[in-house]
């Protein structure tokens, strides 16, 4: 057995997300990745490489890895048709009920901090069956008891049309699953080098957990190789800075 290689946090998280995509493989035909999502982009492309070309992966902002031809609207229309199976969302704040805040901290009319905005979250969180939440910074600043602004809620009343919603939350410390019926997170595993106590100390919301919390498996050597040699150059097209920082590669010069 080969000794586990060293890896970066981003690589572990991409591997975790890739396995989350894989867990739902039987129904997954199309994984879409939105703006400002380099780790999910890495994960989705990794899943496609491992799947021998499936699922379809659409990266917002990519020329090489998108199958949309009907403009910026098509992703949302496509999701509304039920053709997008997995999407990724983050949040400046995320709370224990799965609510996400991409707008501001404090009173909306007099905010203390401002994030870019809700993007497509107030729609996609409702209609994509499997939404994977990711937030690298796992702290009481980001994982809060209650978000100050609900860009999109973690759950909805029974009479609200909602085929989609959160399935998991991936941070730099751990993986939570989301229980839609109870609208609560459940700790699934802590990443290598991290502990349950640390997760408890740094999480602002209550969550469920088993008595024995497993350790998140490290990425295999093969996965790391695939990620670094095949996936990273693809990621560099859309996220050149990320690809440079994480994988140490430069983007190809865009064709002119």
């Amino acid at each position, binding site marked *: 057995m080969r000794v586990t290689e060293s890896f970066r946090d981003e690589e572990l998280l991409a591997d975790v997300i890739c396995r989350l995509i894989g867990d739902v493989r039987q129904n997954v035909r199309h994984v879409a990745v939105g703006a400002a999502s380099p780790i999910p982009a890495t994960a989705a492309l990794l899943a496609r490489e491992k799947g021998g070309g499936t699922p379809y992966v659409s990266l917002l902002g990519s020329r090489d890895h998108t199958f949309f*031809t009907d*403009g*910026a609207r098509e992703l*949302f229309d496509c999701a509304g048709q039920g053709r997008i199976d997995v999407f990724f969302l983050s949040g400046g704040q995320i709370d224990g009920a799965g609510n996400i805040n991409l707008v501001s901290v404090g009173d909306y009319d007099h905010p203390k901090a401002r994030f870019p*905005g809700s993007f497509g979250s*107030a*729609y996609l969180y409702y209609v994509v069956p499997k939404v994977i939440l990711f937030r690298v910074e796992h702290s009481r600043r980001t994982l809060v008891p209650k978000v100050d602004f*609900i860009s*999109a809620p973690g759950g909805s009343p029974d009479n609200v049309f909602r085929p989609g919603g959160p399935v998991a939350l991936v941070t730099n410390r751990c993986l939570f699953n989301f229980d839609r019926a109870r609208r609560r997170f459940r700790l699934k595993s802590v990443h290598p080098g991290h502990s349950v106590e640390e997760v408890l100390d740094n999480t602002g919301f209550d969550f469920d957990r088993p008595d024995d919390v497993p350790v998140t498996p490290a990425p295999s050597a093969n996965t790391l190789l695939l990620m670094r040699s095949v996936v990273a150059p693809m990621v560099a097209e859309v996220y050149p800075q990320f690809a440079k920082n994480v994988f140490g590669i430069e983007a190809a010069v865009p064709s002119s």
Partner: protein
Amino acid sequence: MPVIARTLDEALESIADGAMLAVPRESSGVPMAATRALIRRGVKNLHLVALPTSTLQADLLIGAGCIATLETSAVSLGEFGQAPRFTAAILGGTIRMLDATCPALHAQFQAAEKGVPFMPLRGLIGSDVLAHRLDWKVVDNPFGDNDPIVLLPALKPDVALFHAPLADRFGNVFVGTQRELIAMAHAAAKTIVTAEKLHDGDLLRDPVLAAGSLPGFYVEAIAVEPRGAWPLPLPDHYGIDAAHMTEYARLAATAEGFAEYLDTYVYEKRAA
């Protein structure tokens, strides 16, 4: 009849102070040369609608004091961090912000495109985006049973402004797969385009090019502006100028630095 303007300023003439101006997302052809020209002209009180998001363009217009109302789903510099002038304006309360979500903006443009007063959209219920939009309504779906759904009013900009790879003398504009530019032009009262270059011949006579083209009768004016999206990218033509964006992010972090940026990169033409 659309006009190939002699100058960029001439093409932009009909963008009046206070106009509702629609512009596209970063990856679809942002008219940055036109944006700098508008700042030089000192345009004021714009209601800027970025379909569905913006980056440098909104930040620059906000910092230069051109914007009264901003209506969009997100503003950042992407990989280059937060949009500093946008963030400062929100925290300082110096612009009116209409927070939206991407598909809602698309639906609102589609409503204008179809000439209908509203468009329904799923999602949104329980979101504070909806809670803060008094112009959006929740109704009971008449085809359902206890099924609330949001109706969004049509959004009809005074002017749509974007940068495209190719235009011809008949006013036809090739936009390729960036079809939200077509929806934007359909929705807007007037459309002004900057184009990388002029196409010899008629884009609509080529059945392949026609499929990705906006017909000229929607177009008010065209100005030819090579590298008109710089420092932002133009799909299939050039990438983002990362060094410039890094410099922008550094300078725009302060009001003083932003003023220096304007002097160097926006007003320089005036000095030249």
